[in-house]
């Protein structure tokens, strides 16, 4: 287990170096000069030059990159070009919203996806199976922003049951939960669909396994056979899909935060890209990459818990 954590940590370092380099280069080589945005339309060429010197943008790109990396290693992600706020602060203030959204969506996806898939499998070809597989197919194909807009239209504008947007209240309050429901459904639907499909096919395979017949031959109750003997085995491939979907969800927060006016990291990133605010873009990308690796590690650990055949020694 320790070996695994070390391995993932090294992976993370390599990944961060690679990603930061790519993002750095693409930001700097892409058209659009932060100085003109900061200086505004009235700025003269010498004003712009002063701004560039101030931000260190006049140095060669590689030098800028190494300066940046030196900072990161010391825990300094730099300062926003736009308002001089430290990038770490900007991220820390926005991250809880994004994390809440991602976790809530994941919960929606698992709570709907796993039982739907399992019930589909044990009642194969029933009306439940047919309708849930159809809904799953639709769920995968519907674009996020459209689903979000429709949900807002129905539940917030027409029925006025839920707020139109924002995520200001803490998630453990009623108000916070109300704010979280629609974004979480919007973001979680596609993942729920993917998890349901995987749960169904994994369960269909497991339920035919010899050890299921053995369990029944021992006199185990039908429900126990399904929800204990079969489920634990069927979950092994599903965990992989859940892990992959967490990454997918993190990506999805960008659009969902826009649709629901949530002040999360996704919005921070979009705004920063528009303003050519390089340090903020860098910081948010590194955060997402780190989360990705951490989730992978979690998946590996859960794997070893569920499947005793896996060991990381």
């Amino acid at each position, binding site marked *: 287990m320790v070996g695994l954590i070390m391995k993932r940590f090294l992976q993370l370092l390599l990944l961060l170096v690679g990603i930061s380099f790519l993002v750095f280069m693409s930001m700097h080589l892409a058209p659009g000069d932060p100085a003109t945005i900061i200086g505004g339309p009235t700025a003269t060429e010498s004003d712009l030059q002063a701004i560039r010197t101030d931000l260190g943008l006049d140095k060669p790109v590689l030098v800028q990159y190494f300066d940046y990396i030196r900072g990161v290693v010391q825990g300094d992600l730099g300062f926003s070009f736009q308002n001089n706020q430290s990038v770490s602060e900007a991220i820390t203030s926005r991250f809880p919203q994004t994390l809440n959204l991602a976790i809530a969506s994941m919960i929606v996806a698992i709570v709907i996806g796993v039982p739907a898939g399992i019930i589909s499998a044990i009642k194969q070809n029933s009306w439940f199976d047919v309708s849930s597989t159809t809904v799953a197919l639709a769920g995968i194909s519907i674009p996020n922003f459209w689903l979000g807009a429709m949900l807002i239209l129905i539940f917030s504008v027409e029925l006025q049951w839920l707020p139109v947007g924002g995520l200001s209240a803490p998630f453990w309050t009623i108000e916070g939960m109300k704010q979280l429901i629609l974004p979480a459904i919007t973001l979680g639907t596609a993942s729920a669909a993917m998890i349901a499909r995987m749960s169904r096919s994994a369960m269909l395979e497991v339920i035919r396994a*010899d050890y299921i017949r053995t369990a029944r*031959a021992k006199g185990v109750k039908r429900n126990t056979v399904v929800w204990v003997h079969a489920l634990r085995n069927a979950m092994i491939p599903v965990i992989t899909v859940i892990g992959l979907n967490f990454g997918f969800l993190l990506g999805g927060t960008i659009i969902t935060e826009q649709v629901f006016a949530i002040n999360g990291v996704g919005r921070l990133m979009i705004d920063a890209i528009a303003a050519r605010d390089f340090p903020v873009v860098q910081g948010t990308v590194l955060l997402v990459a780190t989360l990705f690796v951490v989730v992978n590690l979690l998946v590996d650990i859960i794997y070893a818990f569920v499947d005793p055949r896996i060991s990381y020694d």
Partner: protein
Amino acid sequence: MESLLNVQNLVTSFRTADGKLPAVRGVSFSVQEGETLCIVGESGCGKSITTLSVMGLLPDNGEISEGSITFQGEELTHKKEEEMRKHRGNDISMIFQEPMTALNPVFTVGYQMMEPLHLHTKLNKKEKKSRAVELLTQVGLSDAEKVLKKYPHELSGGMRQRVMIAIALACNPSLLIADEPTTALDVTIQAQILDLIDDLKRDLGMGVVMVTHDMGVVAEVADRVMVMYAGHVVETGTVEEIFENPKHPYTKGLLASVPNVDDEEHSLEAIPGSLPNLNEKISGCRFHPRCPFATEKCKEEDPPRFQISNQHQSKCWLHEEATTNESRHEAYS
């Protein structure tokens, strides 16, 4: 004396794309306490489906369409799932062919062993554990305490099959059904497992139904033998009768196809042709397309079971001169 298990005229069918097809076509047999009945026949002749019918564990598309199965005098065919469940792993146990896949890979041996004890007995945790240890020792696994903590993948095939047997024995079953319990194991382990089942049968006085397609296994463990072909019982008799005086042409063919160590020329003389599909319509005796003795009558009329001796029956026109099953029964009753 009342039989431990009595199966009368069992017909088990499958709903398939070609309609409802019988895989077991009127099978009758009985098993007494302390007796081993071997069911033999080629792959696909209906051996497993016969035993699964007894367990009430047929595949979803299968059902018992006719006949009766009584266990200790109790009719099983119309039992509700919940009532059948209480018999399974309790007084009727079953072990299967594939020890490599028959245990659940994600639970410890201990968990899987305690399960039937938990379901069918009132033992407390400590008693269950000591019973599990006792069982594992009984099936020849030393260091039982350690084995309990292991996962199936940490055990060899032979050890897993011993664990399976221990699980099956957990609640002292009166009837043990073993469906090719040794086919997947190598020869030495195979002999050990067969000996083990035989010893346990004697010690515990269980009735055993052993499914196999290996005549060598039959010779080793059977008291009585039931030969099946295409869903029918074609011959039954004591193990001596079947080996020394086989009557049915199919049984003779099976015996001839046993590898003969002394005479390689005659080893593996398989029966020509192959088992008909479930949906194949065959008039008369279902074996006639493959039978070297088939006559016109065989092609037209399905032979009844003819009584050769008290326990010996053959479903073949060649033995018509013997009394029929029915008249024999009359003579006895």
